[in-house]
């Protein structure tokens, strides 16, 4: 029941906001997001006190096609739900003080998006998962299309078609699995697991690639990423935050829930290839980030590099790797939302994101610069920031898998420093110019977003145990499947 409330409360709030068309839509949306945060806090309480049964709901929906409304929350789901419920209020708050045309639509769509994201993270039915997955695309498409920047029509269309194409591959894979479920066909997660695990090695390989392609497009992992830099750049900041902070985790979550346990032989056969592609992607995206001239585009590429590391760590199929992926998803979400907001603030004051035109902002906006430094440190994984925990565990797991791949993936700590320090130097250090001389420091709502973010970055870096312990049992359970198979590897 609680889980259902968690999914549909944002939708109800969104419908209300659509209906009211109030000038105070932003405040309403923020209030709704805060209530949603409280609901998720209750969920955490239930989860911790062992009342996990209460979080499950399962009843038939459309019996003829084996679709049921089946939702549940385990540790892996819970972390992503929390990421969503924590970030959305900040994302809404970050838009305060800006005027949008049709504000009720804008904020309503953000809440619809939240509904779909949470649905994706809690669905235990393959088709239900697919439904939420596709629903999530619709609000973000309109957010980008209506409130985006220059050339948005073409770019958002490409984004929409690209991810839709990926999703269709997933749908095909899901239907194939459905047709192989034992007994009465169903999309129930256990049934799909049983179906996938019963497939021959070759079939599992096909399913692996169909699912992987869908998830890889969403994350995005090299070479399925070319929709991303343009979309991140053109989307309104809140859209970019939703895309990078939360939506890309759908792809990673998809791998953990809907790929790794479904086709174990496929994963063992092709995992090495997936890791290889991901590691190439890390270096590839980092190199491209080095020569980017636009602040926002640079962070977009850095995001591809970070996600590549997460994907590579995941496919090592070790507890360290998957736990690293979990905490890195949280960290990346927080860091990247902070980073895009900083870019937004800079753009708001100077009307540019071209690094060559910036500089010297530290002189006039020291608070902004300090917040940027801490966020940057989270991004380059300095110890005692959240980024370190994840990157350490991930690189460590890849290193254990193949030492040379770990060493290559580890280049991210050098290349990350190269492009992030360069960005800081170009934008914040040096002397002010005509554009930056009048930059004002953080306003109240900017502080209200960025201060908690930097506190979280440091807090998680110092004491990650609460987060790691939430997902630990679920990850261990996931890997049980592989313990008899490790001999084959």
């Amino acid at each position, binding site marked *: 029941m609680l889980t259902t409330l968690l999914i549909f409360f944002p939708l109800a709030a969104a419908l209300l906001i659509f209906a009211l068309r109030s000038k105070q839509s932003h405040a309403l949306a923020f209030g709704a997001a805060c209530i949603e945060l409280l609901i998720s806090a209750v969920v955490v309480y239930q989860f911790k006190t062992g009342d996990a049964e209460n979080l499950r709901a399962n009843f038939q929906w459309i019996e003829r096609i084996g679709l049921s409304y089946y939702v549940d929350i385990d540790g892996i789901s819970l972390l992503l739900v929390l990421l969503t419920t924590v970030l959305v209020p900040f994302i809404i708050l970050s838009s305060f003080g800006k005027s949008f045309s049709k504000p009720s639509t804008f904020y309503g769509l953000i809440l619809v998006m939240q509904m779909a994201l949470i649905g994706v993270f809690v669905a235990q039915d393959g088709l239900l998962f697919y439904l939420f997955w596709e629903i999530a695309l619709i609000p973000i498409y309109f957010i980008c299309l209506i409130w985006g920047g220059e050339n948005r029509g073409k770019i958002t269309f*490409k984004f929409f*078609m*690209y991810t839709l194409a990926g999703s269709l591959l997933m749908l095909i894979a899901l239907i194939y699995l459905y047709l192989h479920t034992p007994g009465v066909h169903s999309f129930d997660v256990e049934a799909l697991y049983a179906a996938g695990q019963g497939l021959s090695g070759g079939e599992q390989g096909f399913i692996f690639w169909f699912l992987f392609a869908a998830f890889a497009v969403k994350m995005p992992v090299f*070479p399925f990423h*070319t*929709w991303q830099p343009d979309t991140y750049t053109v989307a309104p900041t809140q859209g970019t935050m939703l895309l990078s902070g939360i939506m890309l985790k759908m792809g990673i979550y998809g791998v953990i829930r809907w790929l790794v346990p479904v086709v174990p032989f496929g994963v063992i056969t092709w995992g090495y290839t997936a890791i290889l592609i991901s590691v190439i992607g890390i270096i*590839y995206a980092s*190199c*491209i980030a*080095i*020569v*980017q001239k636009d602040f926002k585009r640079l962070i977009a590429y850095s995001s591809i590099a970070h996600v590549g590391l997460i994907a590579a760590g995941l496919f090592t199929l*070790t*507890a*360290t*790797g*998957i*736990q*690293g992926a979990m*905490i890195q998803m949280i960290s990346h979400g927080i860091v990247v939302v902070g980073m895009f907001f900083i870019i937004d603030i800079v753009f708001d004051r100077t009307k540019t994101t071209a690094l060559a035109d910036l500089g*010297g902002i*530290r*002189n006039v906006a*020291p608070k902004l610069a300090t917040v940027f430094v801490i966020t940057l*440190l989270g991004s380059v994984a*300095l*110890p*005692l920031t959240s980024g370190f*925990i994840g990157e*350490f*565990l991930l*690189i*460590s797991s890849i*290193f*254990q898998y193949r*030492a040379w791949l*770990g*060493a290559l993936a*580890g*280049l991210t*700590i*050098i290349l990350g*420093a*190269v492009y992030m*320090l*360069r960005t800081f*130097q170009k934008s*914040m*250090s*040096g*002397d002010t110019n005509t554009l930056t001389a009048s930059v004002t420091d953080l306003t109240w709502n900017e502080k209200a977003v960025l201060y908690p973010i930097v506190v979280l970055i440091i807090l998680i870096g110092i*004491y*990650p*145990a609460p987060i*790691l*312990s939430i997902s*630990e049992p679920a*990850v261990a359970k996931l890997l049980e499947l592989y313990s008899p198979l490790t001999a084959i590897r």
Partner: protein
Amino acid sequence: MVSIKFLALIIPVLPLVGFLLVALNVKRLSHSAASFIACGSVFLAFIAAVTLFIRLLNQPEDARTFYVHAFNWIIAGDFHSTMGFLIDPLSSIFLLIITGVGFLIHVYSIGYMHDDAGFNRFFSYLNLFVFFMLLLVMGTNYLVMFIGWEGVGLCSYLLIGFWFKNQAYNDAANKAFIMNRIGDLGLLLGIFLVFINFGSVNYADMIIQAPQASPETITWITILLFIGAMGKSAQIPLYTWLPDAMAGPTPVSALIHAATMVTAGIYMVARNNVLYTLSPIAMNLVMIVGLATALFAATIALKQNDIKKVLAYSTVSQLGLMFLALGLGAFTAGIFHMATHAFFKALLFLGAGSVIHALSGEQDMRSMGGLRKYLPITFATFLIGVLAISGIPPFAGFFSKDEILANAFAHNPIVWGIALLASLLTVFYMFRLLYLTFFGDVRASQHVMSHIHESPKSITVPLICLAVLSVVGGFMGVPEALGGSHWLSEYLSPVFAQSVEIVKQRGEEHAHLTHATEYMLMGIVIGLTVLVIIIVYLKYVRKKHVPVADAQLAGPAKILANKYYIDELYNAIIVKPLYWLSNVLDVFVERMGIDFIVNIFGSSVPEGGKITRLTQTGSIGYYIFLMVIGIVLIVTYTLIG
């Protein structure tokens, strides 16, 4: 009586609290309040370190190791790392130096930075640095050390680029951070290997399990860890960031880039002495890199004219000597030289800072000269520093350097010869520096000389304290040959006992040098040192030689003045190719490759539609024609099929 656990926890927490208090109130605090908090927190940490040290001394010799558990930090899968501290003779020595010398430099900074707008920010960074440095040497496992390791790198970055309006300084800061990160990756991979092979990242587990590990594994671990040391302690090939790091305010150069942070590599190798001793290959590598760096950097220092650059290359060279000692298995000698070097190099840097301060920011020695009359305290203390680094008895450097040279001789006279050459070069460039700065004619402009003044007390008192330490510091390790008992060696012996045992079992112990040999070596070294001093005196004082402008240099001198063009080399073989590759990937692979293909897929749909549209002509005759063809084809197919 406070417990050791309490002391161990309070030592790093104090500067952290200092940092938070100052950093969160940068705008609100007055300069005096900020400096009081910053200096006070480090001073309290120093008191705690001294108390801890005394507590250790009161313990029996084999019971001076304490593990202090704070909390569980990272637990994921089978990986486990606590946040905890290791207190033993090795870390206690570092604690004393970090907090003691750190405190003096904090006090010095009050005077040196007094009219800087970023005064409070400066002190917050200094406190943060001390915190991370303490974590580095106190960590109970590799990961806590790594926190400190990267943390001091961050502070170094922040302080090198402290005057951030100057983009050249920011470049230097970036270079330092990135080059250190290259080393850090090596260190990180080494830590992974430690974990994979020993199932833990604790030093205690490593020490127990190391003898059972395969030699190849140990060699890999030690070499990877050493790559980290090369970065942090500025050894070939990762040393070029350190001279550039002189962009930071002078107290930073003294604290971070001479006395403490750059000795992190020394600490790390000493902490892992068991692993290194188990890998003769790694030991040889450490020795060769140390020796090569000692000589190489000393030659560069000969032709530098920026007073801080000379000292920077000198630091690189002295660190090389320390690594030489470690590579020879003379771990105590390495730590000993680290300690004395912390005293006299901090003194020299602070002295140079006092000169720079007096000359309104001038750093070029060609515009100095004759300053001993104007800056008597600075001169006297600086002279002590120069005598100490040159190894004149009984100053601190004599004993520590002598111990390294004696060990080198016992290992191989050629190694001794090269090390001796490096230390004679040190004598040369240090006296050159001394004479150019304090002797001869005054070459500063009238305008500068009209402002000249001896530095305030907050600057001269730390100088005097460090000068005293540079005089007496060597007595903690007076060798037997000179009637001493080498207290430091005794004190540190539990830390290195296992290594000594391993060497003994292998039967590779060096024969002890006879006292006669030791006297002879000392005699040769001192004799040559005096000779070099005389040569330098004749050249720079008698003949009043002043280095010519860089443009007029030719031949080897030009190569030295340009630091062997190593920066240019790295630029050509690493930086430029990286940018070239990145541009190629961006333009050709990303935009004209992958995205182009994606767009072809995209545009193939409307393009395909345009082609198929052509079949829809609207003419009925044409449709009937196609229909007939279709029917014929179907009939044919069914007949044949």
